[in-house]
């Protein structure tokens, strides 16, 4: 298995009027070719920011302040304008949460496809581009005549499939999906995940699935990364993480999912609230809420430790 993406010690900060938000701090992550990596965490943990950083489409005032993102050995953080433009959409693609607002309402679907194709393959003629768009729609299970429609004329599920189509039209290695099912209803969501799985096999795609929905991840992911407060808590195979979560945050996350098989008189919650990323807690960022916090947790940031075939950032295992 080859590693296609290596994120080394990445830090992303947002300087705003009340201070600097440390959205991502000291993140190390590798993506292997062909796998689906689920990136989970609660809102504000930095997972979307991490996704945006890979393509360097951070919204101002966000900035990558430290670290490397190596794609096939080349550092994305250091790339110039031309290099990054040819990377986006072509080698690494991204799809977003709300397909209605992610498609330009004033342009027809086929125009949006052809534009993407022509941007990256300069010599292409319109007819060929149109045909490729047609074929893509067929692969997605959408009738090609819908190419001549506008985004608002389609249903939510169809729009989301169009989004995938636009992402995959140039056959990228890596697809980053940022909360792709949040705006879909449950049935459409299931269809969407199946589609994603099929496409993954068809195109030999690597997928970084960013979501707060653990159900999605359970279905699709090979490996899971759990993020909290801008840092990584745990990385490991999906089965292992679900079966035997090591990091106290992961444990809390999984136990807060209602289980229909258990006889639960009360729903489990985690104490406390998400950390203030302008003034993060000292030491381990989770320690104020951790039911198993030790004295050292408040003093020093834990190292990344290997245990049971996984990487955990927790003093319990050091």
């Amino acid at each position, binding site marked *: 298995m080859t590693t296609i993406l290596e994120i080394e010690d990445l830090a992303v900060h947002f300087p705003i009027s009340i201070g600097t938000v440390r959205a991502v701090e000291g993140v190390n992550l590798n993506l292997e070719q062909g796998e689906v990596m689920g990136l989970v965490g609660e809102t504000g943990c930095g997972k979307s920011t991490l996704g945006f950083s890979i*393509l360097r*489409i951070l*919204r101002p005032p966000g900035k990558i302040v430290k670290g490397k993102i190596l794609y096939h050995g080349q550092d994305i953080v250091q790339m110039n304008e031309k290099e990054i*433009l*040819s*990377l*986006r*959409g*072509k080698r690494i*693609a*991204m*799809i*977003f*949460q*709300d397909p209605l*607002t*992610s*498609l*330009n*309402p*004033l*342009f027809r679907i086929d125009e949006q496809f052809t*534009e*993407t194709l022509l*941007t*990256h393959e300069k010599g292409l003629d319109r007819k060929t581009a149109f045909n490729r768009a047609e074929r893509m729609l067929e692969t997605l299970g959408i009738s090609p005549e819908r190419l001549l429609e*506008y985004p*608002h*004329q389609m249903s939510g599920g169809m729009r989301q499939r169009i*989004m995938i189509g*636009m992402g995959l039209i140039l056959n990228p290695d890596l697809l980053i999906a940022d909360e792709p099912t949040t705006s879909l209803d449950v049935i459409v969501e299931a269809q969407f995940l199946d589609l994603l799985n099929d496409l993954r096999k068809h195109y030999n795609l690597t997928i970084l699935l960013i979501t707060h929905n653990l159900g999605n991840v359970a279905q699709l992911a090979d490996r899971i990364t759990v993020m909290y407060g801008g840092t990584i808590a745990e990385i490991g195979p999906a089965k292992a993480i679900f079966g035997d979560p090591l990091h106290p945050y992961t444990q809390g996350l999984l136990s807060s999912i209602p289980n229909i098989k258990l006889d639960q008189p009360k729903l489990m919650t985690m104490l406390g609230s998400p950390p203030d990323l302008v003034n993060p807690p000292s030491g381990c960022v989770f320690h104020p809420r951790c039911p198993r916090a030790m004295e050292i947790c408040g003093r020093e940031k834990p190292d990344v430790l290997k245990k049971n075939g996984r990487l955990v950032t927790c003093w319990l295992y050091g």
Partner: protein
Amino acid sequence: MGNLARYIITRVLLTIPMVFILLSTVFVVLRIMPGDPVGTMLGGHAPESVIEKKKEELGLNRPIPIQYLDYLWQVCRLDLGNSMVFKQRVTKAIAEKLPATIELTTFAMIITILFGVFMGAYAADKRRSLQDNIIRLYGIVIFCIPVYWLGLMFQLIFGIWLDILPIAGRTGPRVFASTFEKTGFYVLDTILIGDFSALRDVLIHLILPSFTLGMVLSGIFVRLTRANMLDVLKADYILAAEARGLEHRKIVYKHALKNAFIPVLTMFGLQFALLMAGAVLTESTFSWPGMGRLLLERIYLRDYPTIQGVIIMFALIVAMVSLIVDIIYAVVDPRIRY
């Protein structure tokens, strides 16, 4: 495309009541004014009997509702009456001067949109920079400059001190009137005849007046476009376009601007009235022989029917433009028609 046609027809039909209301307003405005136009016209010291006779002649003695209906009937037949001062049908007088005004306002419109929209988009793109602040300042200041003063200053600088542009009229002295028989739109006429030196002369005469009028109104568009662009640039589809590797310039000036332009377009329909008002002042300053100057001329001469006719014409133009803008809106934004 059936949807578009249906929308257009509906919209055209809606224009009729709007025109009706405008005409009624003009009628009311010109009748309820205190002061006696007939009396003033006859010199202010004419004896009662003469005034009464003249009034009867003009039908001003009849009850107001009758006058109103008669007025509407006349307008429908495109009969705007006869001038009280010259032996001339009002419609003919207007028809002579209308092309000049339309030419002026068209070119001014082009300048306004070019200046306003692109400066606004540029400012939004370079937010918070020096260029942005300068452009924002321009947006506020330019509208406070009286259009006639700007015109006079331009005349001073380019016409008197630098002496490179003409300051009055539509053409120079060496061009013959017969060149402009066909449409009255000098730019068109000269092209149709193929007289390119006359075309050059006409265009040079158009420069100062249209720039003056165009620039003063561009301020509003700068601010509007900038504000809309700032909103649009935050949208998800812009982020998605960036993620697909599209160049920055294309994203700003194709994707963002097209979306930002729509509310600006609606505003344009409303601002057209300002364009007309500005045209009157510009025509006066540059001795431009259009409807604005006709209006002013006839006001001095107390030519009541012509004054009414010109104002009706302005009202109709405003209604027409509003219609056209709505149609363009439907063409550009597909969400309206489906």
